[in-house]
């Protein structure tokens, strides 16, 4: 285990699993870098040379990356964080003498419902209705431009819906099921472009050393073609729900409402500059004014009805994702990285349900055990 790799975003969902696989599997000498002291909570399970550095602080990053051969950029966050972190990371990697930077972008640079035929060569747009996608496109372009003038090699990975322990996709669905707010669109027939986290980590490991891939982007997915229903059915069953009973909700038109537009503006550079001039209290007031107000109870004399469960409403992102009809190809990753999915979708689901149980979700198995 001689390859020393710095991992930015080590405290997150993907970062945590990278640390586990690299360290426990003896794949590399991993140096986790967390954005703050408190982000060390999960990482401190291991006796590692962890560092604290904000990804926007080039100087702190430079110290954190010193002596590392490669760097993985696995920092998640809002569009502003995505944009603001790439330049300092690349520059710090250059200063630290890093050979290669592996950047975790996202398949969503192609949109949540990419057109049939989409692959890595398909043109990218920064005029998508989801600001996250635009930020990722911007970040990829910025990094490629830095690479054009800098010595640090760059590999871009575009994972699909990353699933597994701590995945927001599955955790949120489980929580929504329990809260009675889970829903389908089109009975979950849309393609989910899933990628079990261990398969992503496998691809990252390959990308750190594979020759001849500098400047290339790679789409990554599970071997199986998985629908949203396939993804969620095992979770629903584990929690004792019949997923078929979920309500179908309407698609949201692919245009942004006032709130989303405001949020996009707020996360842009000029937006942040203007927002900083507005007092916090006023900003809070504006946000509150844009939040729908629930109707007041009409009369105290109404006969109590069974608690109403209003039909959930889909977010724009979910609405687009559920419409996906294209399984993104990973042919390039297979050919140039030697990638193959190392954990099947079924096994990944089993492990994720194991984690849900670990995290205190009331699975049937856990209920039976405590009886």
């Amino acid at each position, binding site marked *: 285990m001689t390859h020393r790799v710095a991992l930015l975003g080590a405290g997150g969902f993907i970062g945590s699993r990278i640390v586990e696989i690299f360290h426990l599997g003896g794949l590399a000498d991993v140096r986790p870098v967390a954005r703050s*002291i408190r982000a060390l909570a999960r990482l401190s399970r291991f006796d590692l040379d962890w560092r604290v550095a904000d990804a926007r602080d080039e100087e702190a990053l430079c110290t954190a990356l010193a002596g590392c051969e490669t760097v993985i950029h696995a920092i998640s966050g809002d569009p502003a964080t995505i944009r603001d972190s790439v330049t300092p990371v690349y520059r710090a990697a250059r200063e630290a003498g890093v050979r290669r930077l592996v950047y975790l972008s996202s398949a969503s640079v192609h949109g949540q419902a990419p057109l049939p035929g989409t692959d890595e060569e398909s043109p990218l747009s920064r005029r998508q209705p989801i600001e996250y996608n635009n930020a990722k496109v911007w970040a990829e372009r910025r990094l490629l431009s830095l690479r054009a003038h800098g010595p640090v090699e760059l590999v871009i990975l575009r994972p699909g819906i990353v699933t597994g322990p701590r995945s927001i996709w599955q955790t949120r669905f489980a929580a929504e099921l329990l809260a009675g707010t889970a829903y389908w669109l089109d009975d979950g027939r849309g393609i989910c472009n899933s990628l079990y986290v261990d398969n992503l980590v496998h691809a990252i490991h390959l990308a750190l050393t594979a020759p001849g891939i500098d400047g290339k982007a790679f789409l990554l997915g599970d071997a199986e073609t998985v629908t949203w229903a396939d993804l969620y059915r095992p979770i629903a069953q584990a929690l004792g729900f019949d997923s078929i009973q979920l309500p179908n909700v309407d698609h949201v038109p692919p245009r942004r409402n006032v709130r989303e537009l405001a949020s996009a503006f707020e996360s842009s550079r000029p937006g942040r500059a203007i927002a900083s001039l507005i007092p916090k209290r006023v900003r809070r007031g504006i946000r509150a004014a844009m939040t729908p107000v629930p109707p007041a109870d009409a009369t105290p004399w109404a006969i109590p009805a069974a608690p109403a469960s209003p039909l959930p409403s889909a977010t724009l992102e979910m609405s687009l994702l559920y419409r996906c009809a294209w399984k993104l190809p990973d042919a390039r990753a297979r050919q140039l990285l030697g990638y193959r999915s190392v954990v099947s979708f079924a096994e990944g689901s089993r492990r*994720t349900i194991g984690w849900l149980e670990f995290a205190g979700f009331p699975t049937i198995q856990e209920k039976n055990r405590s009886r």
Partner: protein
Amino acid sequence: MRVQDARIKVALIGCGAVARLYYMPALRVLEAAGLVEVVALLDPEASHAALLREAFPQARTLRQLSELPRGAFDLAIVASPHSLHAMQTIYLLEAGASVLCEKPMATLAEDARAMMRAAAVGRGLLAIGLVRRFFPATRMIRHVLEARALGEITSFEFSEGSATFDWPAASRDYFSKREAQGGVLMDIGAHALDLLQWWLGKSEIVDYADDAMGGIEANCLIRCRLDCGATGALRFSRDCALANRYTVHGTRGWLSWQAGQVDRFDLGFADSSQVIQAGFRKQAASNFEQSFLSQLRNVIAALRGTEELLVPAAEGIAGVELIENCYRQRSLMALPWLDDREFARGRELNGGKSAGAADR
């Protein structure tokens, strides 16, 4: 020791997050009320002490215990990393001061006993900072259980955890195995195991597992048995959002406390589906801050001889013994997302008793 002076002179040992968030505002209020005077702020990291000095400009800032002038203070508050609690407390007691030591009292039972011995021969008092004992809700729960309102206790489940760790630790030492000596068990577990024994009496550890793999645990699971034979589980996490409920079941009913809730808890009876939300009228300590102040005021009153200490060292030691027993029985938790090779390596690094394949 009786302190008759108008103001009790306080030295704050350790100026990290707990000092900044809780002790600083509490001591400022008590200073303004003429009850205390903060005379010294000690931290090896000068910037930490300097931050607090803005609140206490008259206080001296120091970097080590030997710089503390003997006799210049009546009460030392030990709010330093866990591994220093015993050594610092003993030093301060031997110097003739009284000490309020943050939880956990010590990381080893032997150290806790040495602290007790130092308190017994010294002039000062030794109190343990277990602030949850000052919440009206936890105090009332103790009364409910003492009155056997739930009948015979049959089981209990305590869980507390969040997916995002939000304690603003001031130093990386908080997560260092050498300095902290433990993770979530030493932190949340110290509160929970104290409440367990305070509410339900003596208990023994049946089984303990955590996820430390060379470092400190972010998750742990404890199975305990009470003297009455009832068993229960305690689950703590710095990694997962848990139910954050402390629930006790009896033959007649149950009660459930939302972790950290100062002034209410839920109560139900076996043959009813109704839930009573028990709150309190006109409580002195109606929020966390007031409870924290109550703790300090109790120590001050004890120093003046007008009240008994509510959490003396003898009360703190039981929790330390339980934590020590937990670590002694350590095994690696079931981590079902690890593959066999990773789990085997994790078990080696955990250093605990070996777990069979069934534990996966």
